[in-house]
Each structure stands twice: as C-alpha cells, then as structure tokens.
C-alpha cells in the first residue's frame, strides 16, 4: 500500500469500516511511514476531540412532556370521541362505514413508503456488493452449483437460471440481508454492468405486478410472483434491465 491509498482509506480505518485485509495493509503502512502515521494521529486527536467534547446537545427537560402531550392529542384525534348522544348514531353509522373503508385502504396508501424504504435497502446492498469486492459467495455460472449452495443457508429455495444465451450470464450467488431477513442474491452481468437479483418469500400467494423506480442513478424493478418477491438492481439502463426482468419472469413462470 502506498501513501495515496493510505490517505484514501484512513477515514475508513479510523472508523473501523475496512475489511480485515485492508486493515492489515494500512496498519503495516502506518508502521513504516512516519508521515501517514502522523496524519493518522491527527485523525485520532480530532475524532476524540469531537467525541469527548461538550458537543452533544441533550433535549431540554420539559420537551419530552410536551411531546407526550401532543402525541396524546394526536392519538385521541385519531381514535375519535368516546361518548356520543344517541341521535348522533344516525350519522355515525355511515361515517363508521366510511372509516372502515378508509382504514382498509390505509395499508395500500402506505405501501409506497414501505417500498421506498426497501428500495433504499436494496440499493445499499447492491452498492455494497460492488464496493467490498464481495460480489459473490459462490462464484459460478452453473445454476446447478449456485442453487444447491443456498440449501441449508436459507429456508427457501430461490429459482436460479443462467441467462448467458440471452446475454445476461450468471456470475454467482450471495447471501444477503434485506427487509430484516436473509435473502438470496443472484448476480448477473451485462457487458460491464452488474445486476443484483434479490429473492425472498413474499409471505402471501397473491402476485404483484412489476413496478420500477430509479434512484441515485440506479434502476430498480420489483415484483411478486408465485410466492416470491424479486428486486432487480443495477446501473444498467432501464430498457435493458427491463429485458432482463422479462427473461427472469418467463423463466420463473410455471411451465405449461
């Protein structure tokens, strides 16, 4: 490792964010290089200065009480008043019916926010897989090697198909963690672009059509089919990624 590499990685080192190999490399360099070693000491001085200095603002004492009060009010407003005169029932009954319809819709209305959170997670996983030189746990283009590898690591069996003939060779598989659960990640390649296909059981039998979103320059497609949720993430252009998605969907259709 040279000084330039060390400078680029020094923050990751100070923060304990490097992998073991890089960690050892930079430690080795710091032992040998007085300049970088001084730079590292400065980093530590600064970091300890911030951490131990009087810079953490604690909430004022009565803020919690005020928040609790406004929360109570909000909760009450949502729950509605409890005691009502009898004549009110003639109006209340239709209103209650309307409320039930609204409440039944709430999960669907809030759907996008859950999807948004998930989209963020999927992008992070995708980016991380490309950063840490840890793209595949099982690097293999053979679907018959990749699929059995997941057995015993997951409590479901993801469909694995090589799509090399269609221009999307399978690179390998990886165990990942999305949506608070271990998931299968399949890695495909299109020229110089990588595609991460995340798969996990949807927990319901109903299929959900394909949706797409792009964020931070990445394109995402996601859908639910035959009890499995799929998220495809890549920096590949939307049209080609969609082509990939259709291939996957055709492969995972029940064979007629």
């Amino acid at each position, binding site marked *: 490792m040279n000084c330039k590499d060390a400078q680029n990685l020094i923050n990751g080192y100070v923060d304990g964010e490097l992998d073991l190999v890089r960690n050892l490399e930079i430690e080795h360099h710091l032992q040998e290089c007085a300049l970088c070693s001084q*730079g590292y000491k400065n980093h530590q001085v600064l970091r300890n*200065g911030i951490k131990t200095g009087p810079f953490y603002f604690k909430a004022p004492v009565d803020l919690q009480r005020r928040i609790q009060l406004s929360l109570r009010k909000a909760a009450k407003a949502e729950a509605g008043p409890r005691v009502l005169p009898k004549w009110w029932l003639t109006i209340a009954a239709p209103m209650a019916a309307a409320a039930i319809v609204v409440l039944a819709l709430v999960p669907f209305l809030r759907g996008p926010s859950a999807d948004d959170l998930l989209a963020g997670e999927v992008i*992070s996983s995708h980016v991380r897989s490309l950063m840490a030189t840890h793209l595949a746990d099982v690097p293999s283009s053979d679907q018959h090697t990749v699929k059995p590898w997941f057995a015993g690591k997951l409590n479901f069996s993801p469909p694995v198909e090589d799509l090399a003939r269609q221009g999307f060779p399978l690179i390998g598989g990886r165990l990942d963690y999305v949506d608070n659960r271990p998931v299968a990640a399949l890695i495909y390649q299109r020229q110089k672009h990588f595609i991460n296909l995340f798969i996990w059981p949807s927990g319901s039998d109903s299929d959900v059509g394909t949706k797409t979103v792009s964020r931070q320059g990445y394109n995402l497609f996601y859908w639910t089919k035959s009890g499995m949720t799929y998220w495809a993430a890549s920096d590949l252009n939307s049209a080609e990624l969609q082509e990939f998605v259709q291939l996957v969907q055709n492969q995972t259709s029940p064979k007629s």
Partner: protein
Amino acid sequence: MREKDRLARFEQTILPHLDAAYNLARWLTRDEHDAEDMVQEAYLRAFKFFNAFRGVDGRAWLLTIVRNTCYTWLQQNRAHEITTMFDEEIHSVDSDASNPATLALQSADQQILREALDELPVEFREVVVLRDLEGFSYKEIADIVNIPTGTVMSRLARARERLKQLLCNRGDLA
C-alpha cells in the same frame, strides 16, 4: 391496532431516542428553539407513520424522520444553507499527509472546534454528527441520509480535513 396500544408501543420504542433527535436537530438548525420545533414535528410525523416502522432500530428510523423534517424546514427558511455545497474542486482533500502539522487539542480549543463544526456546510456537518456523536456505521448513515456508502466516506473525509485545517491554522497563529 388500537390507538392506545399504538401510543404505548410508540412511547416505549421511539420516545427514548429523544436526546438523539434533539442533538441532530440542534446541529442541523443551529438554534435551540427551532430544534425543539423540529423534534416535536418529527415525533408527530413518526407517530403517524409508526405502522411503517419495521421494528429494528428505532433511533435510526426516528433520525431519518428528524433529518427530513429539518431539511424541509431548511429549504423553506434557509435555502441558501443547503445550496452552498462544498465545492469539491476547491476543497478537495489536500494531501495534508505530505506535511502534517502535529495536532493537539487543548480544552481551550473546544470553542474553536464547536465553531468549526457549526461552519461546516450542513451536508458535511450531519455525517460528522451521525458518525462521531451518534456512532452510526457508514451503512446506517447512508440509509438515514439516503446517499451511497462511498459518499458517506468521502463527505466524512472532506469534513475532517476541513476541521483539521481550521484547527491547525489556529495553532499556527497562537
């Protein structure tokens, strides 16, 4: 879920992170009254969307909402603060390692450090606060701020370089 149970569960999981919420809001708004308003509003929002909370890290979830609330407010009230980004070219990390001065912090420097932190552009201030005061990992910060993990690292690098420069300059003057 009944409203009362929902409130009880919310108070149990989210309310304990009040200090973290206030600390972040205080650093983002740089004003104690604005920070209190932001935290109150963020808590109401969080309660409203509590159903979307997946029950892992309440602090990270709450701080995401606090941050968004603060940014909305900054956009409306102090738009210039979020548009004055650090120019990457001008403030590129100068190879300080080629001639590093020795940095030593004395207690008298705390005031200077606080001012230096305050003067950082908000996008850089927030990663320092989330990393060094809250102890979040790069990945967690990336999720809260909604930027790639690599950007977390480069923002931290630039922010720290700037702070070191400010402190070293002070050292030269003394």
